[in-house]
Each structure stands twice: as C-alpha cells, then as structure tokens.
C-alpha cells in the first residue's frame, strides 16, 4: 500500500519476535538508539505458537531494567499486528516516533555530546 511512515525507523529482521533478546533491546539503547520496539504477530497468531508472548515478556523486562537504571521505559515497546495490516503498522510507527520525540534524544548520547 506504500503508506508513508516516519523516516526515523530502521527495521532489523528476525525469524520470530521470540528470537528477540532483552540484551538486543538494551544494546540498541546503550549504543545510542532513541527508542526500540518490537513488532510481532497478533497474540494467538504466532507461527511458532508463543514467540510473541515471550517477546512481550522480554520487552517488559527491558523496560524494567531501563527504568531501574534511570532510563525511560517508554523508549522500549512491543506492538502486535497482522502482517497484512499496513495502516496499523503506520499508526504504531507514528505513535512511537511521536513518543520518542516527546522524550527527546537518548540521554546517553546527550551526556556524551555534552562531554565532547
């Protein structure tokens, strides 16, 4: 459908969101990403049965870790949609983009740039 979504988003392909590790999410933040989110199939529609439930748990865990070290848990998120639902993909992309813009740049990055 070629719907437009914000240019701030880069996609990393995984076979199933169940493959996404807490470490992957936190590493993105650590390396300077302003936000990171996981897009999985709708709950109950995972090809591998429960991968998206696992992903959600891990996203929750990453949120906890992030807030425990003073970060904003809103920088990490999980969304579910059907692969054919382009409008919803765009909606979530816009939602996340707007949220990150409100939160501002990753403070790790900021601190460093101030130091520089």
């Amino acid at each position, binding site marked *: 459908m070629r719907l*437009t979504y914000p240019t701030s988003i880069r996609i990393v392909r*995984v*076979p*199933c969101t169940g493959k996404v*590790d807490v470490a992957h999410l936190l590493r993105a933040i650590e*390396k300077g*990403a302003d936000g990171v989110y996981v897009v999985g199939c709708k709950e109950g529609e995972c090809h591998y049965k429960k*991968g998206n439930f696992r992903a959600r748990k891990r996203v929750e865990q990453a949120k906890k870790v992030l807030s425990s070290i003073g970060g904003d848990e809103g920088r990490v998120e999980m969304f579910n949609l059907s692969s054919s*639902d382009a409008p919803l993909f765009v909606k979530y992309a816009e939602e996340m983009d707007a949220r990150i813009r409100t939160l501002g740049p990753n403070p790790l990055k900021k601190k460093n740039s101030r130091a520089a």
Partner: protein
Amino acid sequence: MTNTELLHLDGEPGNFTARIRKEPRFVDISKCTSCGECEKACPIEVPNEQDKGLSKRKAAYKKYAQAIPGAYAIDKRGTAPCKATCPAHVSIQGYIALINQGKYREAIELFRDTHPFPGVCGRVCHHPCEGQCTRGDYDEPLAIRELHRFLADWETEENAKILPETAEEKRDEKVAVIGSGPAGLSTAYFLARKGYAVTIYEKLPVAGGMMAVGIPEYRLPRNMLQREIDIVCDLGVEIKTGVTFGKDITFDSLKADGYAAVFMGIGLHAGRKLGIENEDAEGVLQGVDFLRNAALGREVPVGKDVLVIGGGNVAIDVALTAKRKGAENVTMVCLEKREEMPAWEHEIEEALEGDIKIVNSFGPKSFFIDKDSKKFSGIEFKTCTAVFDKEGRFSPSFDEAACEAFFGDTVIIAIGQATDTSDLEKENVPMTGRGGLHADPLTLQTSMEWVFAGGDAFYGPKSVVDAVASGKEAAESIHRFINGMDLKEGRIKEWTYDKPDIVNEPHKDRTPIRCLDPEARECNFLEVSFGYNEEEAKNEADRCLKCGICSECYQCVKACLADAIEHEQTVAELNLEIGSLILCPGNETYDPSPLNDIYSYNSSPNVLTSAEFERILSASGPTMGHLVRPSDHVEPKKIAWLQCIGSRDNNRCGNGYCSSVCCMYAIKEAMIAKDHCDHELDTAIFNMDIRSFGKDYEQYYDRARNSAGVRFVKSRIHTVKEIPETGNLELRYADESGELQVEEFDMVVLSVGLQISESTVETAKRLEIELNKYNFAETTPSLPVNTSRPGVFACGIFQGPKDIPSSVTEASAAACAAGRNLAQARGTLQKEVVKPEPIDVEGQEPRIGVFVCDCGINIAGVIDVPSVREYSETLPYVVYAGENLFTCSQDAQDQMKEVIKEHNINRVVVSSCTPKTHEPIFMDTLEAVGLNKYLFEMANIRNQDSWVHGNDHEAATEKAKELVRMSVARAASLQPLYERQIPVTKRALVVGGGVAGMNAALGIADQGYEVVLIEKEAQLGGLGNRLTKTIEGMDVRALIADLRQQVEAHEKIDVMTDSVIVDFSGFKGNFKTEVLAGESMASRTIEHGVAIIATGANEYRPKEYLYGENPKIATQLELGERIYNNTDVDDLNHVVMIQCVGSRNEENPNCSRVCCQNAIKNAIALKKRNPKTGVYVLYRDIRTYGLLEDYYTEARKLGVLFFRFSADDAPVVAPAGDFVNVTFTDHILGRKISLDADLAVLSAGVEAEDTEELANIMKLNRNAQHFFLEAHVKLRPVEMGTEGIYLCGTAHSPQLLTESIAQAMAAASRATTMLSQPFLTLSAVTAVVDPDKCASCLICVRTCPFDVPRINETGVSEIDDALCQGCGACAAECPAKAIELRWYEDDQITSKVDALLEGEI
C-alpha cells in the same frame, strides 16, 4: 498458467489431451518487476472487483498485493469499438482518457502515432467511430471528432509542434509519392518515420489535394491544414508543387533518379458528367473545378441565381461556396428524396441554415440555352420516381411526363468525381475498367511491382481518414518491398469488439458545439464551427464508457523501464497431455439485486453484501479497514446481518441448499466490526438457525453471544426500507412467535450464499461432467471427489458448499484421487539442477560485493542511487559496488555471477527490495557460481524506504545508506551454512482401521508405497460397523465390506488387527514405532517415513433423558439399526427425537455436526415406512448444512414436525407406562406441550475415541474434547504439529462418512508427497547448542514450542536439526547463551544494531 480456459478434454483416464485457451496478459511476467509504474501511468479507472466494486482500480493492475504470479496485467475487452471502427485505428479511447487527465501532449502524441491530421480530421471526418460508440446505444455518442480537433487546436494555441516518434537512423532508399492529398501525405508521413527519404510531387500549386482544393475553407481553415502538412515536412518529407506526373516526371525519370518505389495517390480531381446535350455550354460548371478555383482564389463568376445538381457533400460544399461567392439564390436539385440524400445530415442542415433551397426527386432532362448568348439559362427536370432498384443498386427511374423547369445564371454539376487521366496515358499506369488505379487490395501493389496505389483514385471517393489508412498500408507495403519482405504476411487483422453492458450509468448529454451564427457566415469563409474549449472537451471526454477497458494509450509502455508490456499479445490455444483432471473453479456469491423490493440492496448504499462488508473490514480494502458506511462515511452504531440471502430459498432464487459458511462469516464479521469500533457497536444477526457445525465453531458462537454481546434473533425478514432523511434502514421482521417487529439500523449486511457461476456450468457442459440440480458437481458419498467422468475430479465449492478447511482438505483429496492415475509417471518430467563446485571461503577475510538496485524508478526516483553506491564502496570489506536498473533481471543476474568471480567476492549484499520475494532468486544466483547461499544479505531500500518515504528524498537516501551499512556489517559476520539431506523410509503407518484409516491406507498404497495399517479391534471397520445407510441411501455395511476386502487384498498393505502402539521415536521421514500385536502380544518394530492418525470416534452414551433405564428410549444409531433390520419400527404412533444430547452443553461445548442429518434421515425413513407415524424433532438449531438442506425440506414435506427449544428450557422425559412422556415448550404457541410417545430417540453426539495413551506415546496434541489438533486449521488441516504425521476422520472432529473419506484421501495425499521425496532437505536455519556452555538448566527444553531440545547422554542439551523449526525462542531464552540460531546469531543481529548506531555515543 493464468488467464487460461479449458476448452475440451479428449481421451481417457491416464491419457487425456486437454485443449487450453490462453488469453493474453499483455505483460511479460518474466520481465515484470511488479514495480507498479504502469498502474500509475494508466488513465483508465474501472471498478475494483477485489473490493467488490467499492473502490477503483486501473486497467493496468495487480489484483491484490500478494497475488501470484506477482506481476501486473492489463485488462482489455477486445478493442474499443471506436478504435476498431476508425479506418486508421486511432486509439480513440486512449486520447479521450488522456484528455480526461489533462495530458493533452500525450494525447496528441498518441493520435499522431497512427494519424497525421488530428486538426484536419477533427473538422472534416465523417467519424464512423461515433456510429459505433456505445454511448450512442444509450443516449448520444461521444463527439469523438471534436475531441481530437480540440487537441489540434490546443497544439496550435500552445504554438507547439508535437512530432511523432521516428526511427533514429535515416535510410538511404528514396521513395516518390505522386499527389499530395491525404493518401500521399500519409504514405510519406509513415515512410519518413521509418527513416526513408520521401519526395512528394504535386501537380497543383498547393499541397494538400482535396483537403486544400476540395474542402471549402469555412470548413477547414487553411492555416490548420498547412500546420499539419508542415509537420509532415518536418519529418524530412520534401513536397514539390507544380510538377505534373506524365509530363515533368515519369516512371523512367523517377527510376533514373534512384527512387526505390513510387506511390500513386492522384485523387479524383475530375467531375462526372451528366451526359446530356449542351453540357459544355458557358454557365455549366463542374463542382470539383468550381471548388478548386474558388480555393485557389481564382475568379468564379456565378451570377445571382445558381442551380446545383447533386445531393452529396460535394454538392452542399458547392452550394454554400456559391452562396459565399455572391450568389443570391442557390437551389440544390437532386434525384434522391430528402431522407435518401447521400450528404451527411449535419451538412444538409448547415445548407438549410445557409439559405440553400433543396429540391428533391428531380433528374435533369435538358438544358435551356440562351439563343443569343449561347449561355446556360435553365434546366428542365423530370421527376425521379425511384433512385435504387429492388436490389438497392443505383438505377434511377423517371416519370418523363412530370417535368419542371428551373432557371438560373449558372448550373454547377456535383454528381460524382473521376480520376483526371489527362497526363497519364503514356505512362501505362495500371487502371481498372472504371477508370481508377488498379492494385492489390491488401498490399496496394500494382502490376508494376515498385509502384503502389492508394487513396480516392484507387477505391473511389471517400473521406480523409480512409486516405490516411490507405497511406499507412502503402507505407508498410513499400517498407516490406524495399526490404525484400513478404508483403502479405500477417497483414489481415480482424478488428472485433465487445460493447460493455451498461447498468446504472447516468445519462449525460453530448456537449454541444458552438458555431458561427448563420448570418455571420455570409460572403466570408470564416470557420463555422468553434470547436470545444478545455472545459467542454473534458466534459465531453468524461462521457466515455471505456468500452475496451484498456484504452491502448500506451502510456504504460513508456512507463515500463523493464520493457515488459506487450500490447500485441494475442490469444493462444495449446494442448496439454495429462493423466487426470481436477476441477476447482470455485463459486460466486449470490447477487441480491433481484430481491431489491425486499432488501433494498440496489436502492440503498448502506445495504451491503457480506462480501462487500468483508472488504470494508479489510486493512487493504477501500477504506483501509476503517468501518464507515458508504453513504456518508460515518461510523455506524448499529449493524444488522440478514442470513440465508440466496440460500435455503427455493421460492425466490432457486438455491434450496444451505451455503454452509454464512453463519460463521456473519459471526466473524460482527466480532471484527466490534473490534474495529472505538465506540459501542450493536450487532444483530437475524437468522432461522445458526449453523456453527465445524470443529470448535460452536465455541466461537458462544463467545460472540455470551462475551462479545452479538445479538442473535430468530426471525423471518419482511422488508428492509431506507429512511431517506438519514440513510438508515428500517428492518421489519417476524419474530419467533410470528409477531411483526420493527427496528432501525445504520447498516444492513446481507449474508449472501455461494453459487456456481454460469461460466462454470458451461465448462462442465463442455467437459461432459454431470451437475446436480443446483449446478454442483455430481459425486457420490463413497467417492466424494470423483465426477461422473472417470479421471476427472472435483473439489472445493464446485463439489458442494463448504468452508475453507473443508475445501483445502478436499483439494488434497482430489490430488490423491488424481495421483492414482499418475503414479507410473511420477518423476518422469523432473530435471536435475547441476550445481558447480562450491567455493571454499573458510578462513577468508570477507570480500563483500554490494549491488544497489534502481528498480526502474521505484528506488532511483526517490533515492540518489549513485550516491548510495559510492557510499557502499567506503564501507568495511566492500570490494565492489555496482548499480543496476533491475538487479533481478536475467542479464543483471548473469552479470552478478561474472562480478562475483572477477572480484573473488565471498559475501553478497543486494540493496533492493524485500527478501520475502527476492531472496530465493539471489540465493540461486550465488549457488550458480558455487558460493554458499547463506553468504547473502539484502537491504530493503524499496519497500522500507523509497516506497514509504517518497516525500523526503534526502532522508530516504540517508536511510538507504544506513540500511546498506547495516547489511554490509551483517554480511561480514556471515558464515556458510549447509542444508543436511536425510533419507525417507518409503513406508506409511496408518493408525486406525475404520473408514478413514482404510481409505488413507488405500490412497497411499495405490501410489505404490507400503502401508502398515494398525487396528486395535479384531476387525476393520471402526464406528462404520455400527452405521447402516447414509442419508443419500448408500449402504454403509456394503461399503465397509468392500473396503475391507480391498485393504486385505492389497499387496502393499499389511493389516495388523488387535494391535496397540507401545513406543514411538524418530522424526519426519524416519520414524520407528513398536507395536504389540494379536493375542500373543508379539512385539514388532515398524520403520516408516510417515504416520496417519485415524483413530476415530464413538457415539456418545447419554447420561440424560433416562437413557439405559427405559426401553422406550434409544439413540439415533440404535434406531438406524432397527430400521435397517426392520425390527419394531412399523407400529409406532408417535416418535419424539431430541437433538443436541451430549453436544452444545457444558461438558461438550461443541456441535457434533452429524446428529441433525441423522435425525432427519431416520425421520424420513419412519415417515416413508408409515406416513401415519407422528415424528417430532425437538431441536435447538437444525444444522443440515450444504446439500443436506434438501432432506430437511423433504422431511417437512413428509409431515415431520420440528419444535425449537432453548438450552435453558430443555425437554423433560418421564416414564409413562407403555409410553414415554415428553414435555417441551412450543415457541409459536408460547406454551408447554406434553406427548406420550412410543419412542424417544436421542441424537447423541460424537465422542472422541480414547487416545490418551497414544497421544502421550506419540507426543500428539489434542483439544479439550480429545480430538486431535491439526497444525493449522485452514492451511494445514490434515497435518499435525509434528512433521510427517497426518490426521483424518473423526479423530480430527465429528464428521460425515463422506467427509471422513475425503479427509482420509487428503491425509494420504499429503503423506505421499513426503514419501515421494528422494530425500528431505533440512533447513540450515536451526538452533545449535554449544555443549561447553550448556548448564543443563532445562530452560530450552521448557521453552521450545515443539519439544525438540533434550538432555543427551553427556548431560547437555541437544537440538535435533531435523525437528527444529528455527524460531530461535530457545536461543533468546538460554541464560548461558549456549544456544545460537544459525543465520540469526546474536552477533549477526547486533552487528546491524552496532552498524546503525555507529558513532552515536
């Protein structure tokens, strides 16, 4: 093979010849990259059938995003009638479509491609196209001529000269054209475009022929003519005027001057004579001479009173010219009656407007000559009584007695034209007896092979457009002649067309032409017609009905950089040698238009069919999933679904069957609609019965009713009427007690049924396949996919109405049946791919090649591809970066192979589109040069970038660079992976020897594979042994006996009765099962490649309704047995049947599917034995789905009485002496009824066989009711979660015997697919454990959704790559990070993240 139709089938099973007709797609699918540029360029919009007409699509289109093949197609309905009729075959619909878009330049380019004179013909054409315009059959034809005149006027106003495409290279050969009329100019025009040097020789002082000296200036302004002649000259054509052929030049001189060919287009510049005395007197003029002299500005004294003889267009031109030249009174006299006059009506009217007197039905008898001056002074006319003879030939008859005299100063004769041959005599020009040029009608070649002839001089007086057509053909012939090609080959093209049906098209008046007032025309030659302005032209163009669908404007050809569009494709027919034929032509949905008086479907936009509503709910639909009603795009608050529209209705539509799927889709639509609304949505489904009979469907119905609040209303619909003020709908219906109720809704959805289309019926007729009365394929219960013609099989809805799981199952069943005739030929058409020596990359530093794709303009139109390519070169390990127009094209792939070899590339990154469609293509290319295909990575800079960021080129380019950087980083971390191949044990194990198991065993064994069939009982047959007859009347016992005999006699089938499975191990293709068999319990180990579970089910043994306590209470199977055996069934006065016993309750929430038909079968049998027996069926919903509905109808006709009860008000059964008393509520009467019956029959449900142990041993999943679970309800309905294990029969779910047979065949087919593989290739993308890191914590064992990891003998986790599905859940979960998923290893994922965020911190 898409776009094909099966025409005939000859031969016999195993050896058929199928005649196939292949309609053109007009797109070469091997070249189409699915980029969609053609669609963007296409000016034609038509209703989108995918969206049920709720949106538009282009004529160049792809039906939906996931369509297979993923290529575009061009939709044509033959040629548009206008183009087909136009002698020059101008793409009329095309330029009209382009006018609609304001693309005037493109429109005129298109016109000029086939016709050099848009302005001239825009004024003088007799437009035969308009005569065939479909609008003309409806209101008035389009003003086609005025529209191209508008284009020429626009070009003039813009002071543009839009030249047609010409050959890039000029040719040395010269061609001479004699005569500069439209035929000569056209010949020159088309030859010059092919690169020839053309010289036109013209006798007169001006160029243009009759366009210049025949057509008066007030009709065709000379500046317009000159403009269009100038364009011919701009192509390099030289025009030499004042040169007479026969005098100044001759054939010999032309030959000597080096001309390779000559075209004679000399026109008809002499007038025909009356042939009466004194015709050469002064004052007697010839029309053509008169017009020529007037046009050339010569003196033409006509006096005050002018007579014109003739009734054609020339005569009118003569009369109007005479008037403009000062004549006061002009009188036209002609032979014909007014309505017979050959002049066009609009010209006659123009003459009358110009004060010309027209006198009809007179022929000249003699001239009056003034004795003194010897000048003409008048004519005596005789009355013409008839112009044509009985055969319609011109043969005037006169009444010599009825004469009349007319007087005047001048008479101008305009009764016909002739060739002026005065200078031709010496040249021996080939002439016909009638004085015209003689040439071959197809090639226009004369008897002098280098001389060609065309135009009026060849075929007689015609219009400019005919001359253009003639010139075009002459140019083609001359080109072929010069190049020594066959002049005739492929020249005859039939121009056929189909006019579209016009339905609901609003009337639109033809846009009138503004003209000079008649008074303002006097004594001047100003152009009479003003033509259209832009607004008028667009207004008129908008009336086009797009008859051809594709307008052949060829904008797509220009837009397609892949060169994939082929407008010249034609229909092809071919023969296919086949062994079996499977028909699955599908269905159409019922069109409720004929019931508009009831449902207002046509008259109210807010009444939709369920198929339309489905599209509104779809994310890719017309509203992108936004639930709004069509009339005002407001979100509805109340929606009603009306069931059984076009189903269960013998009266109004003839579809007496139940369509089987509507209840479930209506519930689904209601649920999704609620989901799509932010506000509370009230949904109500108006129904007679809810038929949720499929596996677990009842639970969905329960959820909809109890949790989601969907209302279900038992009702009969009276009418749906629109409330004009609001667009809402007033629904009137009778409720269950028969009371009329009224309720208002925002939208109404008609749950339309399924039916077989007319074209499918036609196909069946051609193939000699018998259809039943509802046009479904005739099949039998025991052979559910066999049609009446041996070797031809049917599946899907063509076989009978059914849902998707059943259709998919039946498709596999048909494959099984078809495969029986093909077993011998298996593998004979296989070709082996030869792979080159693999390139060893072990230990090498990465050498990465990056291929950046333009994808035509899909990527390059947004992203600065050269800068992405340059950037790629700077990335680590990149040794090569290239750019391709289409990286996926064959030549680019070949080039990629060379580049890989030349630069010793050991990792490849393609930066283009999505790996979903293109990864396999590029991986093949890698393999073709010996590079491991996993050393490959794609950066999706199209779908994830240029397509979605088209409005920000800079950001898109930046993103592309980052995506490439990420991909290069990952590519550098990739290692080769190897796909393991494992053998397949060519033996099947079938568990369960009932009808399903026996059919599955036969299905596999008939394909040539060994089968071991295990039955726990002493004999085969299962539950089938308790069945008697099917509802259709088939004897089940005979069927079982036959199956048993076949199975036991089959040399490939090994039957083991009294056997149980005690151990099971292995994986797909390689299982081992231990069985204890017979009374001795001898152990036997069976090695097999596949297993089929067919363990069956039983009739539920009721705990309710005093069953087992009272002899007057039986189950339906027991009653069936009694009927079959004729015991105690004839003297029954009253029999009560109670439905849903042991089904649809708390213990078993599912519907048992078979009980309704079972009850009806027995009820009919009782009624037929003894019509006096009262049979009462107490039901909750009658679920006689599909064609079973007919039996429900029959039962009612036979007098079986049906009473509905609610689950919370179940019947009560009590003993009553010799009888049994049943009390229940009648809804219509609204009171309790008590009945003493001879027999109460319980429709006991279906209960799964006890498979607890088996499920544990084989690790198979079951649902709460202990039916086995399939891998996917719709996509893999007979496969189980464990690969290599299949499922069929009542072990899957309750089903009818015939459905069990189909499912067994389906399982056999799927199993055979695996057995027939020489080996199985395992995915390389699997999880692998590093034993050194494994702490044996068992987390992986618990995580894996497929139970694959196990702790091995050495005490660490081990993952069998034959079983691993590659999801990576274990790798993510492993706390020791001992597990990696190959190709998605942690460092391969984080390399991308790191590369993306490089330098951010």
